[in-house]
């Protein structure tokens, strides 16, 4: 559905996207993950036909977005960053305008507008002026616009930004339901989001794709090196002594918390999971264990992990 090969985009002296290549198959939901300025939005703008590439080719459904721009655009539903809308129009009127603009006939556009308004939960605000809607509703109007012509490829740039948790959940469920029938490319900088929605993740950093894999595999790769936190009621020196004896623990840190409990932060030496080890130790010694968690990977950890070889090379 999407074929990007050697795409580079330079803005006056700055390289926003640096020689990236990737493919997305029909029906996939793919997440572009990266910090601000990683080149996610630029990639999407090139894909949607808004900006020309400096070099490289981009194809959507077999159409080159530069040479067959209009045919490619016909097949794409794109919601830009910050979801721009015409504030003076009413919801139904706006969606109808967009449907007609995307080449739907009068009757067809009426049908599709009703369908996407139901799909996006807009039925009760159909006559409201967009400028007076809450952010959550406006976001849904943007989504409905991207869906209205039933495109093969849907590109959503940060679809859940600025929404409250309830709305985020609704939007995620909606996006997830699009998979299979549509191909979806979303960008985000929230890791759990891609885990929940996407079948595949591309991590972008400084204009390059650093890793691409399923969220599970990525999580698995990242699991190595993750810290384990255990809160145990035991004498502090006994704890220190116990951690010393384990070769698997590279580094540990014991701090007192309330009462008899101590908080132990344990870093494994070669990426093994320390939790079973902690549990068997506690059982053997008859201590009380209050908490045992493996710290979840934040996006930051992943960047650090993924960008490690590159940043250490020059030294």
């Amino acid at each position: 559905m999407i074929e990007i090969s050697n795409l580079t985009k330079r803005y006056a002296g700055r390289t926003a996207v640096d020689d990236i290549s990737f493919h997305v198959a029909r029906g996939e939901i793919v997440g572009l993950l990266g910090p601000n300025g990683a080149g996610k939005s630029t990639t999407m703008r090139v894909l949607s036909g808004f900006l020309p590439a400096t070099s490289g080719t981009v194809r959507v459904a077999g159409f080159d977005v530069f040479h067959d721009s209009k045919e490619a655009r016909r097949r794409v539903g794109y919601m830009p960053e910050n979801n721009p809308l015409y504030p003076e129009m009413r919801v139904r009127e706006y969606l109808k305008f967009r449907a007609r603009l995307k080449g739907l006939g009068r009757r067809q556009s009426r049908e599709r507008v009703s369908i996407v308004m139901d799909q996006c939960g807009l039925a009760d605000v159909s006559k409201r002026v967009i400028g007076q809607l809450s952010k959550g509703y406006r976001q849904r109007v943007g989504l409905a616009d991207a869906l209205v012509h039933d495109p093969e490829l849907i590109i959503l740039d940060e679809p859940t930004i600025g929404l409250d948790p309830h709305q985020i959940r609704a939007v995620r469920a909606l996006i997830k339901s699009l998979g299979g029938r549509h191909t979806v490319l979303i960008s985000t900088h929230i890791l759990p989001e891609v885990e929940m929605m996407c079948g595949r993740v591309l991590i972008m950093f400084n204009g390059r794709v650093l890793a691409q894999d399923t969220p599970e595999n990525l999580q698995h790769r990242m699991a190595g090196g993750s810290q384990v936190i255990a809160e145990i009621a035991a004498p502090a020196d006994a704890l220190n002594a116990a951690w010393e004896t384990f070769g698997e623990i590279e580094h540990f840190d014991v701090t007192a918390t309330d009462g008899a409990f101590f908080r132990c932060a344990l870093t494994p030496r070669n990426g093994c999971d320390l939790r079973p080890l902690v549990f068997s130790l506690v059982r053997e010694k008859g201590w009380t264990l209050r908490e045992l968690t493996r710290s979840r990977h934040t996006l930051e950890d992943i960047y650090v992990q993924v960008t490690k070889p590159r940043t250490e090379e020059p030294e």
Partner: protein
Amino acid sequence: MRIFWVLLRRELSAYFLSLTGYVIIAAIAFLTGASFVQLINAQGNDPWPMPVAQMFFGSFYFWMIVLLSAPVITMRLFALEKSSGTYETLMTAPVDDLQVVAAKFTAALVFYVVMWLPLLASLFLVGRFTNQSAALDYGVVGGMYLGIFLAGGFFLSFGCLASAVSRTQMVAAMISLAFGVSQFALAWWAKNMAVSEDWRSQLWSCFNMFDHMNDLARGAVDTRALVFYLTMTFLFLFLTLRIVESRRWKS
């Protein structure tokens, strides 16, 4: 063509659904009314030396309205969409650049013509209550509106160009106002030049908008004026189209 109509409807609704549109119409109605009050007061009961339409075109009110309204009408066309980001949703829909430029210009022109309709009421009042029975003569009114239409196309097409090159409405308005004023100065200069058979003087006379309007208000349609306005309008629209297309050019 269907896309053009869809876009035109949306552009027109942007004018007529917003307060700005009505503020502009009200301001212009006030200015035309004021100019007629002044013209009638100045004339008193003396016989009029020329039809009132011709006098109106000679007054600075008419030029003030054209010069001020064109930037205000056109500034939002592209610049507002760019600053609010809707330009991205618009241009990523399967539309042609030509359709977008044509729809935006046509909407501006339609709004501009609607804006001038209160002038008819002023003419009617003059025709009804003064000894100027020719004020509502079809030829005069037709020539007058043709003049308004041609001058409007000229200044509005430049306004489109200014809006297409700017990122904010303010800059667009400044550019097209600067153009309007210099065009006005050029016309003034051309008017005061000695008329001769010299080709340079002939060329300059093309820019003499005062005489163009004067002729049109008498009901005399001069092809030179017609060609001048239409050529310039299409030139500016062509340049606007190139600017809009340039976004897709490879750097």
